[in-house]
């Protein structure tokens, strides 16, 4: 796990270096916390269409749905992150992103807020902010204007 964390940190550090100081994150709410994923990682934000449960599927899979003819597997981000489960409200949305395999995956979130721009010095790498045992999904902690934002690495979330 320590190795993972280090690699996450270095990955993050590298990205910051590569892409200049300011990045855009989409902010969303989940189980009372605020999260962010990099905007470029998101293909689309959807109001949830009817989702068909898939028996025998891994626990974090809600089911499958059709997005204009494309079959999309939908994951419950609460289950992926081991958060308390709760039924969706009408504010619930699905974020579409691509897994490392190229498969398009939907992520169920409670509510989408807005886009924030974070400079490098507003992001704490996960390792230094949270110490050792951090999930590889977490890139770091963002602190825009006094808020607390858990930044997720979308490809690893949807691939895990």
């Amino acid at each position: 796990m320590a190795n993972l964390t280090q690699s996450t940190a270095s990955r993050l550090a590298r990205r910051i270096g590569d892409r200049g100081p300011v990045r855009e994150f989409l902010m969303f709410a989940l189980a009372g916390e605020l999260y962010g994923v990099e905007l470029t990682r998101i293909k689309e934000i959807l109001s949830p269409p009817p989702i068909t449960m898939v028996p025998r599927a891994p626990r974090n899979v809600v089911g499958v749905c059709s997005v204009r003819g494309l079959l999309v597997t939908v994951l419950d981000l609460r289950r992926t992150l081991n958060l308390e489960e709760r039924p969706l409200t009408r504010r619930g949305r699905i974020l579409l992103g691509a897994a490392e395999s190229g498969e398009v995956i939907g992520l169920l979130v409670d509510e989408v807020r807005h886009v924030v721009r974070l400079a490098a010095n507003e992001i704490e790498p996960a390792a230094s902010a949270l110490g050792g045992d951090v999930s590889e999904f977490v890139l770091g902690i963002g602190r825009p204007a006094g808020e607390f934002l858990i930044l997720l690495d979308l490809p690893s979330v949807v691939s895990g």
Partner: protein
Amino acid sequence: MAELSDKAREEFFSEAQEIIETLSRNLLSLDSAIKAGISDPSLINEAFRAVHTLKGLAGLFGAARLGALSHRLEDVLDDLRLGRIELAQEVLDVLFGAVEAYTRILQAEKADSDEDLDVEQLFVELERIGAGATEHESPVADYELDPGLLAVLTEYEEHRLRANIALQMQLYRLRVQFDLATIDKVLEDMKERAKRHGEIITYLPTGEATSADTIELDLLMASRDDLATLIGSLGADHVVIEEIPRRARRSHPATMPPRRLTALGRGESVGMQPELERGGLEQAASLRSLTQTVRVDIRKLDHLMNIVGELAIVRSAFGRVAEKLRGEGQRKLAAELQRLHRNFDRRLGEMQDGILEVRMVPLGQVFDRLARVVRQISREVGKEIRLVITGAETEIDKLIVEELSDPLMHMIRNAIDHGIEPGQGRVEVGKPLAGTIALNAFQKGNHVMIEVEDDGRGIDLSRLTEKAISLGKLSRSEAQEMSRDEALALIFLPGLSTRESADDVSGRGVGMDIVKTNISKLGGVIDVHSETGIGTKMTITLPITLAIVSALLIQAGKHTLAIPLSSVSEAIAFEEAAVRLVDGREVITLRGQTLPLCRLDRLMALESAPHSTSRRRFVVVAALGQRRLGLVVDFLYGQEDIVIKPLGKSLSAVRGFAGATELGDQRVGLVLDAAGLIEEVLAGIEAPRTLERASG
């Protein structure tokens, strides 16, 4: 390889691939022709043309390795075609080697790899064969042929003349008056008719014509029929047929050395026995002639099929609107819409059929490849094998064909290696020396059946069960209770091979289980039938297409599920009271036969519908090959055409589903994998619940 657009590259590869397949087919036909003692010059010619075209193509696309091989191969084929070297099995071996080399080169080019492909040995072999070329002495002088005619024979024509004389054919001269306006057609026509009797070797204008609109040609023909027959068949007012008499054998050989004179080689002779000039014109012509067909990426057809699927949803909406209008008393408008709906429905059906038809390819594509493998393995292991193919024209979805070649290849390897006895062993038990492998394909309803049958020693059941016991796959008492079919099915267990050594072609113990898995992935099943001492027959049952299927929509628990109709034999009412428990498994009796049951809601741990217990339920009988399974479901909705979409990679570990389909009204329904379910339930394996779903 030179820089090319992706599209041009794709075109190049698929065209080269096609040519190589044609070449391979030609060589196989040549192989069987030789074995039957027939000489068919057109086959060598075709092979030569294929290689020639490939050389041109390689040149155009800067594929140097392909070009180098084609160049050398072309020389050898040219020698063969002109009779300078004799077509023997050893020569064919080298030619088949060249086909393999082509395939490797093409793969390397595709991957843009510069790896050393080790074709040097092949080049040496080709060189060696070419060095054996000899100039023949001519028996042509035995005939009273016009020296003027002989002088203008091309080398190829001279070879054909010699070959025909060697076959004891009689030579004839046909003096024919042609109308200049129609000569092309009439000449073609004559050649076609002449084929029944022999071969027209060459033709030459006589220079005498009765009018300015006609031309007189002397046709030199070889035939085994007598003059009267030919006159009866080819004779006409403007045709004079004469036999060319044989001279008394002269003591000295012919002095005339007719070398490649091309007075006839231009223009007018092209339509005849194809005269091949190795120049640019020929190359341009052959490249052009291949553009009759359009190659389409199968994904584009998938896309079209998806659109058809969505249009079908629109169609259902039409129907609903029409119903609604009728309900609101707008009868006239409703009737009009209903008419449009029907029309739309019909056209959509035609479009769907059209797209499906385009996806279909004959199984011959994969059978040809297998024929090559059979030849190769039979020579490797020193067993003589006769391959009998029937039903190569049976059509099946392109995607299925692609996935079939590996499993079939493995089955054939098994048949040759384990099934067919060595030659001596066969003779001792009174079988013909050559083992027979039959590859039969035929359509049966919505399925294509492929049989791989050998007349070998059959599967040794006692050895098979012993091996399974020693591997700990089953206990001795289980083995004793097993039926014959169950015992035969042991060959599909992983790691099982009845051959002790692993030094030969198959017998490595990987194989039939993988074959079975691959076949199930295509929605098919495989059955095995074997008689000791008589042979083994494996039967693969496959759906014709994966693109669109008729399905039965059912409800199980809260789920709406689809079962492909191709795997459903019937649906009956379910009576709880009729269920019997045998060895812990639920069964019912259907027309005197035992039918194992599977309660879908329990197997899949489905949430049950509110009043599912009080309601009437049904049994859908799924049948594939010889196996049947009764699926207990809550409701039958009816039949619908569906487009099956595969579940994403993240769900690839989930068993029991072939994919999902859109049900209209935005919902998605899962499609049951009948073959997989039958497998899972009948094999009695507990479903591996990949990740136990928590109760919450």
